[in-house]
C-alpha cells in the first residue's frame, strides 16, 4: 500500500504549488513531498526485500527489487535536489522580486514542474504496465522541458528544442518496441491481454524470439536516447549544461537511470526467449561507443557543466557494458555503478551550481582559486570528482572493478581492456580542469565565502552517501542489489 501515496504525494504537491500564496510555501511543500517520497521509498524497499515484490492499485502498480533500487535513487536525489533548489534559487533570483508578479510566477512554475518531473519519474519503476511505463518516460521529457528552458536564454531555448525533438523521436521508436513486445506474446496470451510485467513474467520463455529481437532493438535505441547512450546522446550535453543546476542533477542522476531501468526491464523480458548473446552484443556496442565519444568530448571540453554532462554519457556507457558482460558480477557492478554515478554526479552538479552563481561563467579557464573563495564547495567538488572518475576508495571504483572482472572472466578481454583504457584517459583528463578551477589565483573582485547554507546542507548529505558507499555496501543495500541481479536473471 506504500506505492500509492508514493506516486500521489508529488502529484498533489504539484497541484498545491499552483495555489499556495508565497515562496516559503512552495519550498516547504516541495521539500516535504520529496522527503515523504524518500521515506515511503525506503519503507517500500524494506517490504520488497522482505516479500519479494509489492502490488497495489489492482494491476497497475508493481515493484520488485529492481524497481525498489531505482525508486531509492529517484527519491534520494529528488529530496537532495529539492533542498538544494531552495538555496540555489534564493541566491539566483535575489535580484528579482519573488513575492509577487513575474518573479513569483517563475518560482511557482519551477516548483510545480519540479514536482511533476519527480512524479513522472517515480511512476516509471513502479508501473506494472509496459504502456504506462512508456507514457511516464514521455512524461519525463514534457515535464522537464520547461525546466531545461528555465533561463529562457538563446542557448537554453535551443537546448530545450533539441532535447524535446531528439527525445521524442527516441520515445517514438520505443513505442514501436513496446508494440512489438506486446505482439511477441500474442501467440501465448491471445490478442487482448494486460500488457504488464506480472502477466508477462511467467511466459517470458515462450515469447516469439524473432519479434522480441526486433522489439529489444527498438527499445534499446528508443529508451537509450533518453538514457544518453551514444550516438543518440546529442541532446544530453546541451540540456544538462543549460538547465539550472538542481535540474541538471536530476536529469543526470535520475532521469538517465529511469531510462536505463526501462532497458533493464526489457532485457529481463527478452533474454529467456532470445538468449543473452544478441541483447548483450547490442549493449556492448552502444556502451563502448558511448564511452569512446564521451572520452573524445571530455578531452577538448572547455565548459565544466558540459564536462559533467559527457561524464554522464561515459557512465551510462559503463552501465551498459556491465549488463553486457553479465553474470552476477557484471550485473551487480552495473547496478552499483548506477547508484554511485547518481550520488557522485548530483554532488558535482550541486557544487558546480555554486560555482556558476559565484563566478557567473561556465568556462573552465575563467574559474580559479575556488578552494580559497569557497572552501567547503571546493572540497566537495574534488571529492565528487575523485568519486566520479573511479578513484579508490569510492563506490564507482568497486563497481568498475566488478564490471572489468566480469569482462575478463567471461572471456571478453578486448572489450574490458578498451573500457579500462578509456576510463583511465577520462580519469586524467577529468581531474586536470578540476585542478585548475580549485587552485590558482581567484579574481580579486569576487567576494569570498559560501553562498548558501541550505545548498551546502544538501551537498553534505549527498557527500555522506558518496563516501559511505565507498567504505562499505551496507547489508540491506547489498541484499537489494543481489535480489535485483536475480530479477535480471544473473543468478546461475
Amino acid at each position, binding site marked *: 500500500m506504500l506505492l500509492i501515496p508514493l506516486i500521489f504525494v508529488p502529484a498533489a504537491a504539484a497541484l498545491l504549488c499552483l495555489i499556495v500564496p508565497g515562496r516559503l510555501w512552495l519550498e516547504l511543500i516541495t521539500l516535504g513531498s520529496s522527503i515523504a517520497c524518500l521515506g515511503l521509498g525506503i519503507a517500500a524497499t524494506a517490504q520488497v526485500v522482505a516479500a519479494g515484490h509489492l502490488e497495489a492499485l489492482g494491476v497497475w502498480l508493481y515493484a520488485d527489487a529492481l524497481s525498489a533500487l531505482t525508486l531509492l535513487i529517484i527519491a534520494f536525489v529528488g529530496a537532495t535536489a529539492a533542498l538544494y533548489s531552495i538555496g540555489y534559487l534564493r541566491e539566483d533570483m535575489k535580484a528579482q522580486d519573488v513575492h509577487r508578479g513575474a518573479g513569483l510566477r517563475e518560482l511557482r512554475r519551477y516548483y510545480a514542474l519540479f514536482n511533476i518531473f519527480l512524479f513522472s519519474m517515480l511512476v516509471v519503476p513502479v508501473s506494472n504496465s509496459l504502456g504506462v511505463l512508456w507514457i511516464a518516460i514521455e512524461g519525463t521529457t514534457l515535464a522537464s522541458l520547461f525546466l531545461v528552458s528555465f533561463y529562457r536564454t538563446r542557448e537554453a531555448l535551443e537546448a530545450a528544442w533539441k532535447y524535446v*525533438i531528439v527525445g521524442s523521436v527516441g520515445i517514438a521508436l520505443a*513505442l514501436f518496441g513496446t508494440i512489438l513486445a506486446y*505482439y511477441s506474446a500474442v501467440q501465448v496470451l491471445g490478442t487482448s491481454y494486460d500488457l504488464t510485467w506480472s502477466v508477462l513474467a511467467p511466459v517470458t520463455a515462450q515469447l516469439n524470439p524473432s519479434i522480441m529481437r526486433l522489439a529489444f532493438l527498438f527499445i534499446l535505441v528508443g529508451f537509450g536516447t533518453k538514457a544518453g547512450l551514444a550516438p543518440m546522446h546529442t541532446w544530453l550535453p546541451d540540456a544538462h549544461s543549460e538547465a539550472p543546476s538542481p535540474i541538471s542533477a536530476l536529469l543526470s542522476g535520475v532521469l538517465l537511470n529511469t531510462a536505463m531501468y526501462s532497458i533493464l526491464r526489457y532485457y529481463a523480458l527478452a533474454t529467456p526467449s532470445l538468449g543473452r548473446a544478441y541483447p548483450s552484443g547490442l549493449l556492448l556496442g552502444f556502451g563502448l561507443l558511448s564511452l569512446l565519444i564521451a572520452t573524445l568530448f571530455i578531452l577538448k571540453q572547455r565548459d565544466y557543466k558540459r564536462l559533467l554532462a559527457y561524464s554522464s554519457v561515459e557512465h551510462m556507457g559503463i552501465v551498459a557494458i556491465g549488463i553486457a558482460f553479465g553474470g552476477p558480477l557484471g550485473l551487480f557492478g552495473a547496478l552499483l555503478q548506477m547508484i554511485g554515478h547518481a550520488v557522485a554526479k548530483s554532488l558535482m552538479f550541486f557544487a558546480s551550481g555554486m560555482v556558476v552563481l559565484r563566478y557567473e561563467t561556465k568556462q573552465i579557464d575563467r574559474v580559479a582559486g575556488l578552494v580559497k573563495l569557497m572552501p567547503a564547495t571546493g572540497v566537495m567538488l574534488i571529492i565528487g570528482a575523485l568519486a566520479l572518475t573511479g578513484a579508490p576508495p569510492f563506490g564507482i571504483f568497486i563497481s568498475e572493478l566488478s564490471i572489468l572482472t566480469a569482462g575478463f572472466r567471461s572471456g571478453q578481454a578486448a572489450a574490458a581492456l578498451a573500457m579500462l583504457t578509456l576510463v583511465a584517459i577520462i580519469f586524467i583528463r577529468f581531474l586536470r580542469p578540476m585542478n585548475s578551477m580549485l587552485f590558482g589565483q581567484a579574481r580579486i573582485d569576487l567576494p569570498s565565502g559560501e553562498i548558501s547554507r541550505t545548498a551546502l546542507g544538501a551537498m553534505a548529505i549527498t557527500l555522506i552517501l558518496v563516501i559511505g558507499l565507498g567504505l562499505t555496501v551496507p547489508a540491506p543495500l547489498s541484499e537489494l542489489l543481489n535480489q535485483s541481479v536475480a530479477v535480471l536473471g544473473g543468478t546461475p
Partner: protein
Amino acid sequence: MPSPVPTSAAQILQVLGAVLLLTVFWMLAARRLHDYLTAYATQSVTVALIAAVVGTFTGSVDLYVVAVLTVLVKAVAIVGILHVVAGRLPGQRPRSVLNMPTSLLIGVALVILAFLTSPAVVAPGTFLNEPPLAVSLSLVLIGLFLMSSRRHMLSQIIGLLTIENGLFSGAVAIAYGMPLIVEFGILFDVLVAVIVLGLLVTLIQRNIVSADTAELRELRG
C-alpha cells in the same frame, strides 16, 4: 492468434495504405505550413479509418473508440492547436535544406527501402502482414527525413507526428491495437506533447524572433 483478414477488408486496407503514402508525399511537396497541416489531418483521418476497418472484421469495439478519438485528438485538436501556433508566426515560410524534387526522390527511395526491408525484419512463421508494415515503416522513415531536412519548427513537429501516425497505424494493422487504456494514454500523451511543443515554439519565437532552427546553432561540442 489474430483472425485472418477477409479479402474485402484487405482491399480497403490496401487503399487506405496508399492514401497514407500519398499524405507523406503531400508533406514532402508542401510549400506552406497550411499544406503540412492539411496533409497531417488527412493522414490522421486515414489512420482512424484503418482502425475502424480492422475493428469491423475483428469485432473489436475498442478499435471504434480508438478511431473516433484519433479523429478528435489528431485531426481536430492537434491540427487546431498547430494552426493557432502557425498564426503567431506571420510571414515565415517553411524552408527546407533540399529542393522539392530532391525531397520527393528521397521520399520514393525511403518507401522502396521500407518495402524491401520490412519482409526481412519479419521472420518466417510469424504473422506480420507485410504491406501494412511497409507502409508504417515508410511513414516512420519519411517522418524522420522531414525532421532532419526541414528547418521550420512546425515542419519538424509534423515530422514527429507523422512518425507517431506510422507507429500507430502499424500497431493497429499488425497487432490489432494495444490495450485500450494504453491507446488512450498514447493519444493523451501526443496531445500534451503538441501543446507543450506549441508553447515552446511560441517561447522561442518571442525570444529569438524566428521559428527557423537554422537560428539555433549556438551549442556545439
